[in-house]
């Protein structure tokens, strides 16, 4: 480029940067147009001359600035606008949650939004794509609507897997761990064979934490078609991967793994045959339990560990038995001994290994959930003389293993059968179990709370701390009603006042949230 082609302003900027003491003014005119040069002006300092010409040059540029024409035609492929999107107020509420207000309600917002079958107006999407975790978004594609995929195509930072578009193998090979988890979960819903092919294609080079993460996704809906891959993962270098693979295989009752475990276990357990006659029916059947020998290499490969963890107070041999028992569907024993769950459990409790067997059956039921067993086990735990944390953990895990609707039934059933003395256990349990309470559970919990407020004298107590969680889980109608009553009863200055107000705020926030989603 010759000097004459450089815009005058740029040339002046180059001179000014060095300073006129070092760089002389050019011979050619510094003015953007010759007609601007002051005619017959009195002599001025070089610097002043440069500044005047620079000012003129700057205006010259600004008056005519135009961006170079470029690509970017009107996007004709933008998805058609939705007939009835969610109301603006729903977007505002979501923004407030994402901005830090009651952040725990994010999933509830999305679930309720998904239930309406409607999507967000597209102008809220960039906020969601920027601030909501990829996995949450992937679970609620319908709330985002088709515009999200359109936007993600234009912004490489966003990953949106649309239900109707194909996912190229390259994306699996090149994505970040976070993205690949989402992609794997998405492809598994559509084409399980391809999801396994993907896994095998990169397994050797995937980092251990990636392998571990991918197995978690297989756990969603593990099936017989996963068996050969999981068998292969049993020989993984990382222990966590081997443990996860064994756990998943144990969930497949028809798998080779399940048959191998059962073969080792079958002869060690025997339930006495039912006694004849009327009196015989009343007599309890006895359970005979033999402890196994140390697990060999093959058993260890199947996930049976030789040494119990230091935290567990259990004998080595009992531990070997418990691990195997925990892998087998409990329904197997009912079939084999022709009995129901309470009968078998009663018999187990009468043995020398009562608590070990109870824990093992609980673990087995968590792996292979079945209503009869969950109910029976929850009852036994509640009535056992075990310490509260152990009881609560067991029931928590049992509840967690079943879908939400069944979880509600399980908890409500226990609640109905429970003795008043166990009420305290229950309020503890409700703190930890993730559950959307129905009206009955809410009533029970809030009655309990009212009772507690009426009798508490201390400034601090545990239930006060868990009130936030209760407010997030309770039935909104009942919650609002009870909260109002409590607030009326305990005015300003009462030591529960702040906690109750906070409870009320959260419930009111939820009520407003649901109302807006239905607008």
């Amino acid at each position, binding site marked *: 480029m010759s000097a004459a082609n450089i815009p005058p*302003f740029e040339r*002046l*900027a180059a001179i*000014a*940067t*060095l*300073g*006129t*003491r070092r*760089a002389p003014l050019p011979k050619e005119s510094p003015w953007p147009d010759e007609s601007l040069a002051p005619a017959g002006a009195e002599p001025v300092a070089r*610097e002043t001359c440069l*500044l*005047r010409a*620079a*000012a*003129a*040059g*700057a*205006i010259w540029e*600004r*008056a*005519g*600035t*135009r*961006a170079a*024409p*470029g*690509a*970017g*035609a*009107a*996007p*004709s492929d*933008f*998805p058609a*606008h939705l007939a009835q999107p969610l109301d*603006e*107020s729903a977007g*505002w509420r979501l*923004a*407030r949650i*994402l*901005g*830090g*207000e009651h952040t725990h309600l994010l999933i509830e917002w999305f679930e309720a939004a998904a239930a309406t079958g409607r999507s967000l107006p*597209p*102008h*809220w*999407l*960039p*906020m969601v794509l*920027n*601030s909501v975790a990829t996995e949450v978004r992937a679970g609620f594609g319908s709330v985002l609507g088709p*515009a999200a995929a359109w*936007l993600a195509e*234009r*912004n490489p930072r966003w990953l949106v897997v649309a239900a109707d578009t194909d996912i190229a193998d390259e994306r699996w090979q090149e994505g970040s761990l976070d993205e690949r988890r989402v992609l794997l979960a998405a492809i598994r819903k559509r084409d399980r064979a391809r999801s396994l092919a993907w896994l095998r294609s990169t397994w050797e080079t995937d980092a251990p934490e990636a392998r571990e993460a991918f197995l978690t996704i297989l756990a969603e809906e593990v099936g017989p078609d996963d068996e050969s891959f999981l068998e292969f993962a049993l020989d993984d270098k990382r222990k966590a991967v081997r443990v996860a693979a064994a756990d998943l295989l144990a969930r497949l009752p028809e798998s080779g793994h399940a048959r191998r475990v059962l073969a080792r276990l079958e002869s060690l357990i025997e339930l006495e045959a039912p006694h004849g006659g009327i009196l015989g029916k009343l007599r309890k059947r006895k359970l005979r339990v033999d402890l196994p020998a140390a697990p060999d290499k093959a058993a260890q490969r199947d996930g049976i560990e030789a040494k119990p963890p230091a935290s567990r107070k259990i004998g080595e041999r009992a531990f070997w038995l418990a691990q195997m028992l925990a892998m087998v569907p409990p329904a197997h024993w009912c079939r084999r001994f022709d009995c129901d769950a309470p009968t078998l459990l009663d018999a187990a409790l009468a043995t020398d290994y009562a608590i070990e067997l109870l824990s093992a059956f609980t673990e087995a039921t968590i792996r292979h959930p079945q209503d009869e067993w969950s109910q029976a086990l929850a009852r036994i735990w509640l009535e056992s003389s075990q310490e509260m944390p152990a009881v609560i953990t067991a029931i928590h895990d049992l509840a967690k293993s079943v879908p939400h609707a069944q979880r509600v039934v399980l908890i409500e059933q226990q609640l109905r059968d429970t003795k008043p003395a166990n009420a305290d256990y229950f309020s503890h349990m409700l703190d930890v179990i993730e559950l959307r309470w129905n009206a009955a559970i809410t009533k029970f919990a809030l009655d309990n709370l009212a009772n507690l407020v009426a009798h508490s004298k201390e400034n601090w107590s545990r239930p006060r701390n868990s009130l936030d969680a209760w407010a997030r889980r309770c039935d909104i109608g009942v919650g609002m009603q009870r909260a*109002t009553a409590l607030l009326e009863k305990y005015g300003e200055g009462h030591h529960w006042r702040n906690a109750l107000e906070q409870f009320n*705020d959260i419930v009111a*926030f939820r009520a407003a949230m649901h109302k807006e989603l239905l607008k």
Partner: protein
Amino acid sequence: MGEWSTQRVEQMAPDGAAVKAAQSVARPAKWRGLGCTDRLAWGECQGSGKDPYQVRVDLIDVNFKCSCPSRKLPCKHTLGLLLLFADGKSVPPGTPPTFVEEWSANRAKRAETKQKKEADPAASAPDPEAKAKRVEKRENRIGAGLEQLETWITDIVAQGLAATRAQPPAFWAQMAARLVDSQAAGLANRVQMLGDRALSSARWQPELLRGLGELQMLIDAYRNLEALPPALAAEVRQMIGWSQAQDELRERTGVRDVWQVIGRRQAQDQKLRVQYTWLRGSRGGQQALVLEFAAGPVPLPVSYTLGQMVDAEMVYFDGCPSLRALEKLRHGVEPRRLAFVDATDIAGMQGAYSAALAANPWLGKSPAVLGPVQPVIDAGRLFLRDATGRRIAVPESFAQQWSLLALAGADALQLFGEWDGFEFDPLTIECRGAWYTPAQIAALPVLSKVA
């Protein structure tokens, strides 16, 4: 009264915490004597004090008063009352009680006295001789200040911009302070801003040279003030630091029109918060900019809401172009209108800007209604493109780029915003018959539909 929605009330709140506080107040159980008319809404709210707080709101002029001591305005009681009003059920029609009546009557009376006072020319005439003396003294000081400034910028160019950039912030602050002493506050601000940009901008070279060139031009212009057209001369005097007395201004005859509020923006100017409100006369098509200021914890006034149609007389400050104005007298408020009229395409806007730049070479941001345009993303930057294919950039600091793109989809937009010759900064967006403004919820940039 369907104009009052929950969202509109939330948008009035000074921040998110205020919204939250207002929601806890917005329960009928906390109130006594709720009522409303076509113009007013009121109620008494039990707060932590002994007596309930008396809250009253003028729904048309958007004015309010609460007897609580809060300095954050509108307070949670005012917002709470409006939230209740917005839900359409909790505030029944009624006759205003005394405290509302009195307030409303007082406001009307105050407006009247103000009007009378303005109509009375024989207020206080200052001693013209003393004033002339003061003016002369100041002119001398400014003259000396200009000399110093010219020497200083000449020296910068001689030493080189690169050497100047290495100077500490005090280098700029000292020159600015000397200009303040010379009573040329406008110049002082320019020097300070130039220093900030020199230290922070990636394009510091051309920006610094441009700023210095503008200063040189300003020095030249002030020395030849008589030779300039009157409007430009007034503009130059203001840029130096002469301010125009608002009392004098109010005596002028203004322009009466029904003004549509088409854009709002807030900015932090050193210690002051400034609220920019853009108006457009629905009959005359003239534009006006009203500036309102607040310092420290004092809230900005809520004199205008977006889309509002204000029947008022506006007086303009001198300027080139004449844009900044004061509201002299308000005659009333008409129902809101959320639609732009006469938008221009990009060439039209640039043509008008060039003409204005020819009249005032220091012209900065200039308002324009642009449309129909299509937002497009190219290499990560947002552009606006009109039907002729011409396109202009949106500043990278505009945080709602993607929201704007998603809002438009395949449709075209009309935008009101500020054009500085390089970039167009949108303040109000019209899309499919609704208005949106860039907003922040917590720290999240969003587009908020004007409800």
